[in-house]
């Protein structure tokens, strides 16, 4: 009896530990320091490299594969591609960094670049003769860590106000330019279970990214998220919901859900990114227009956050690094930049290429205008940004649910971010 009991206890304890082991998986990667491999600097470029990106959606994955195929043709370097969901990107990179199995070319969300560069796993792009001339200053800032550029993007994106032309015309509403106009339009367009405006306020980076245009356009600063301007911006956004201009479900809607609401006609306007336009174009009965995100006062310039993925080359040995450098140069060249922007509705990250792109694609003009004044999320805070962003996302949720007034929620966010 007693042995049976003991066995049973051992078994149950083991089950308990085994299950919780899933949680502690991060501990399983044992980091062992290793000096960067350094072959002769005259080594020939490798014949193939591995690449990691998160263009896993149906349309993005096809478009990106085409870009990679073009560059394989031009450089003769074979590219083994790996595509993973966005949320797994950073864990995957950290795992790779600790086991020294990072892919040789990485395309990651620009606010995470400095974080990764701070580990020492990346190489400066100047090593490969990649120049930063002609790029929007915002995207260079996002890719810079301690005065060296580690990442550059072929295309960038930003948020704008996309509106349903038919619904606005039927209600006699002009596309709003200021905060007051936006609120009035949203309230007027909300009726019969449909809402005037839709945006995303989920508790993640996506929620913060959607709030930043309001936050920055009102003159607030990420280094002090409980400033008067910040409180005013958050109060304005939560009022949009409490006044009935937007559904409370914005708390659960990702930007994809927001686009669904817009396409199905449940929302007359939405705050969303340029990458949605290709999908909106597929809906033949949908007539949409794009204007910049409304500003607090008339004539103001909106300051949206700069989005888009930057390419970076991890330390992997001379031959593969050189090959990766050649591929990245090709991806950043003007024709590829234009192809990628066209296929995925991004904005070319070079100023003059973007201007050319705007002439060919007039529906993208509102986005192109905004990129000129767009800000990099990591420009002021660098590595500290993710923590501030998480605190800000929680504050946005607290204010919209009505759990805390905007000023209290932001004060708590400032405390959480500062600690």
């Amino acid at each position: 009896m007693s042995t049976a009991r003991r066995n049973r206890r051992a078994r149950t304890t083991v089950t308990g530990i085994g299950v919780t082991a899933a949680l502690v998986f991060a501990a399983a990667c044992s980091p062992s320091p290793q000096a960067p491999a350094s072959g002769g600097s005259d080594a020939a470029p490798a014949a193939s490299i591995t690449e990691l990106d998160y263009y896993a959606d149906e349309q993005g994955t096809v478009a990106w594969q085409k870009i990679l195929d073009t560059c394989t043709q031009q450089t003769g370097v074979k590219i083994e591609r790996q595509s993973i969901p966005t949320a797994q990107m950073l864990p995957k990179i950290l795992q790779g960094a600790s086991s020294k199995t990072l892919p040789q070319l990485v395309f990651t969300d620009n606010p995470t670049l400095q974080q990764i560069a701070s580990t020492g796993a990346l190489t400066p792009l100047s090593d490969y003769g990649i120049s930063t001339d002609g790029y929007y200053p915002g995207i260079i800032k996002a890719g810079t860590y301690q005065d060296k550029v580690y990442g550059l993007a072929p295309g960038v994106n930003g948020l704008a106000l996309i509106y349903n032309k038919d619904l606005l015309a039927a209600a006699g509403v002009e596309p709003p330019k200021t905060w007051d106009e936006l609120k009035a339009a949203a309230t007027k367009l909300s009726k019969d279970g449909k809402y005037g405006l839709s945006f995303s306020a989920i508790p993640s980076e996506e929620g913060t990214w959607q709030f930043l245009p309001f936050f920055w356009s009102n003159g607030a600063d990420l280094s002090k998220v409980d400033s008067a301007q910040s409180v005013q911006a958050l109060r304005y956004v939560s009022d949009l919901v409490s006044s009935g201009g937007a559904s409370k479900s914005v708390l659960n809607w990702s930007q994809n859900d927001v686009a669904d609401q817009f396409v199905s006609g449940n929302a007359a306007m939405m705050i969303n990114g340029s990458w949605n336009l290709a999908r909106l174009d597929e809906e033949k009965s949908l007539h949409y227009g794009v204007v910049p995100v409304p500003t607090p006062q008339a004539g103001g310039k909106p300051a949206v956050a700069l989005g888009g993925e930057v390419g970076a080359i991890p330390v992997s040995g001379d031959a593969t690094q050189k090959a990766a450098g050649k591929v990245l140069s090709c991806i950043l060249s003007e024709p590829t930049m234009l192809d990628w922007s066209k296929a995925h509705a991004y904005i070319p990250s070079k100023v003059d290429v973007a201007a050319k792109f705007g002439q060919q694609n007039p529906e993208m003009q509102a986005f192109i205008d905004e990129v000129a004044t767009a800000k990099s999320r990591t420009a002021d805070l660098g590595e500290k940004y993710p923590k501030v962003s998480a605190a800000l996302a929680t504050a946005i949720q607290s204010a919209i649910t009505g759990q805390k007034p905007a000023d209290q929620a932001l004060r708590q966010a400032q405390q959480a971010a500062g600690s």
Partner: protein
Amino acid sequence: MTLTQEATAGRAETRARPGRRRSQRLAALAFLLPALAYIVVFFGYPLVGNLVMSTQNYTVRSFYTGQAPFVGLDNYAAVFRNPVFGTAVTNTILFTAGSIFFQFTIGLALAVFFNGRFLGSATLRSLLLLPWLLPLVVSGAVWRWMFDQDHGIINAALRALHLASGPTPWLTSTSWALPAVILTNIWIGVPFNLVILHGGLRAIPDVLYEAAELDGANAWQRFQHVTWPLLRPVTGIVLMLGLVYTIKVFDVIMVVTGGGPADATQTLTTLSYGLSFHDFAFGQGAAVGNILIVLATCFGLVYLRSARASLSEVAS
């Protein structure tokens, strides 16, 4: 001569016996070794690694350099100071208790119902397994969509049945969100309880029910005095496994609410993930993971005590 021979033989025999015993013990150890090695490599090592990590200031940089300064119990102190920690502990307990209670009761009721043989009972039972077979991310996404305040099917149904005057803010109110994720988890967990309890019911001999019926016991008395006591060993296993499965639930919450709105559905698992992968405070994330292990072990010990009590009861 014969005496000495016998004596030597006897001595040889006594010498051989411990040798055989030793080789037997070695063989036993050899059989144990694979299991032991498995436990050490896959449970022991990560566990120790996690304990070590929770005493370090482990940052993104540490992943690459392998160096993280020792900070003692600072991570635990920071976790206890974190305003979300209290909410997460309460939510973990509510989530686990709520899920297990309803999963078990509904599972048991269905198991008893399907134990009666009627047309299509086997088919229906296998259909009820479906929630268990679906990937959690799929069921989570579907429930999130059904819970939608404006266009969700649940609110539409409540409206049609005149059970609710206005739309229920399932996922948008801080007080409704936790019940909503618990509801989702109950739906996912019922089939598991149903299957195991149904197996347990099948093992109860029919003659006992016949005898009880002859003695004039009604349906409730038959359940109370025949089914329930004989099902007890199975009940223990179901509850224990249910506990272990529920306390570590992560994906359901992540898909349905993402821990929101305003941290209303944060549990220890989502908090640990958030600290590690949003704040990059890997040491604090590891600390929360360890607290969860301690909590799970406590529950496990409580179960073991009750199991021992019921075993000795059966034995006496």
